[in-house]
């Protein structure tokens, strides 16, 4: 589904991602874990078309999409739920969901999808007419995921869905993530909560200062003493 070779991304002169290789097969859930500042978010931004890579190649569904803008990629089914949720604060919940369906013109199906995500997240249904900026952090994260689903993506890039949330809310968000994965949506999951991320994924990559240092099955990584020490706090 997604094939990344020797991807390099730089801010000004500083290389944040230093030539990484990464592969996500169709229907797979893959975790990308690592410490703060390792380059995970930068990688996702480049894959979603928000940053222009300095080098390397990104192939999505067999086509070279290196450097293509975000609005082009989402039209081909590649969606990013950005770090910090990326709310349109002064749009209502309903308008945020409508923005998620911006690329679609099948109004009837969109209406049905809106009902579906509202059934999935009853809290959002209750707050439909409220401005997104007035929601709690967890509700905003739900809205961010629901909004991305409105585009009916085939592949979802999730950036730190658990960031800044209470443990109970983290559980709830990850339940949803697993449910979406079970529907066959391919996922690349970036998380600081390495344990949760690896438990949700089939494979994982470990990133350290711009490079991928480990790549293995999620189970193997979970029992890897190096990973346990550095990322699971043991």
């Amino acid at each position, binding site marked *: 589904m997604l094939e990344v070779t020797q991807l390099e991304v730089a801010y000004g002169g500083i290389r944040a991602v230093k030539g990484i290789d990464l592969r996500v097969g169709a229907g797979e859930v893959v975790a990308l874990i690592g410490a703060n500042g390792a380059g995970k978010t930068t990688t996702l931004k480049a894959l*979603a*078309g*928000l940053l222009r890579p300095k080098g390397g190649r990104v192939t999505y569904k067999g086509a070279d999409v290196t450097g293509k*803008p*975000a*609005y082009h990629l*989402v*039209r081909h089914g590649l*969606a*990013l739920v*950005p770090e910090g949720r*990326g*709310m*349109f*604060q*002064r*749009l209502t919940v309903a*308008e945020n969901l*409508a*923005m*998620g369906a*911006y*690329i679609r013109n099948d109004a009837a199906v969109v209406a049905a999808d809106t009902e579906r995500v509202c059934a999935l997240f009853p809290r959002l249904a209750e707050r439909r007419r409220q401005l997104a900026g007035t929601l709690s952090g967890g509700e905003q994260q739900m809205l961010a995921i629901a*909004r991305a689903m409105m*585009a009916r993506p085939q592949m979802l890039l999730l950036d730190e869905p658990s960031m800044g949330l209470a443990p109970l809310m983290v559980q709830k968000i990850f339940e949803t993530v697993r449910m979406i994965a079970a529907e066959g949506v391919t996922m690349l999951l970036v998380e600081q909560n390495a344990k949760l991320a690896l438990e949700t994924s089939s494979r994982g990559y470990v990133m350290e200062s711009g490079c991928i240092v480990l790549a293995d099955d999620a189970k193997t990584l979970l029992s890897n003493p190096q990973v346990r020490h550095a990322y699971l706090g043991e």
Partner: protein
Amino acid sequence: MDIFAQQLINGLVLGSIYALVALGYTMVYGILGLINFAHGDITMIGALVALTIVQALAAAGMPAPVVLIIAGGGAMMVCAALGLSIERVAYRPLRRAPRLAPLITAIGVSILLQYSAALIWGKQYIAMPKLLEPAAIDIAGAQLTTLQLAIFLLACAIMAALLWFIKASRMGRAMRATEQNPDVAGLMGVNTNTVIAFTFVLGSAIGAIAGLMIILYYGIGHYFMGFMLGLKAFTAAVLGGIGNVGGAVLGGLLLGVIESLASGYIGDLSGGVLGSNYRDIFAFLVLVLVLVLRPSGLLGQHSGDRA
């Protein structure tokens, strides 16, 4: 004749034109954080294009409504094309430049438009051929001409349509989304360059209508007419809260009324020392007061981070 009622009527009519121009400033500021100082001059180009069309067609003896529709349509098309090209050539390359660069560029574009107009139309005042014979209606001891009424109603209709468009249409929603978070709008599939270009086209076309209204109202056009009009419309946008579309409407109407009332009474208040030709003072007095007392404007919520 009741001076207060008369100046109120004049002020509302003038204010509705200010509001149309102010919308162009506020929409572009909202989406780019840029004060497009060339917008007043785009309005001037619209006015002079309309004037030229009216001159040509009225001489050919066409009926007034047809002449006006063609003049308005022609001016809108020219201004829309102009707005589109200015954004593409002058502002887009500077999208990621420091804020001061596009601002200076805007002033440059403004001067370029003024002197291009001077080359095309000359530097003299151009008289508008007598096209309409407006009748006067008596209201509360004041006179409202049918032309004033038509300008006011058309301006209100355009503003209502625009507010509805931004609130309820898919493109309007994309404009608001781009304004609030351009990166995330891109993630939703919005081509933000298209949205920004569209904003310029829309603001410029509305400015063209305002230009046509101005030459109908004052009966005269000039290559420099966009300068003062632009500054006043900018003041109106700041008064309402720049970036806020409803604020531009409110600010425009309010500024027109303040200016008319003040110029109606300035002679009495100053004991005859100052006449109504000092009217322009009031717009800028308002601008200074707003910037000092309430920089975010009447309806603006956030300010400070944007210069």
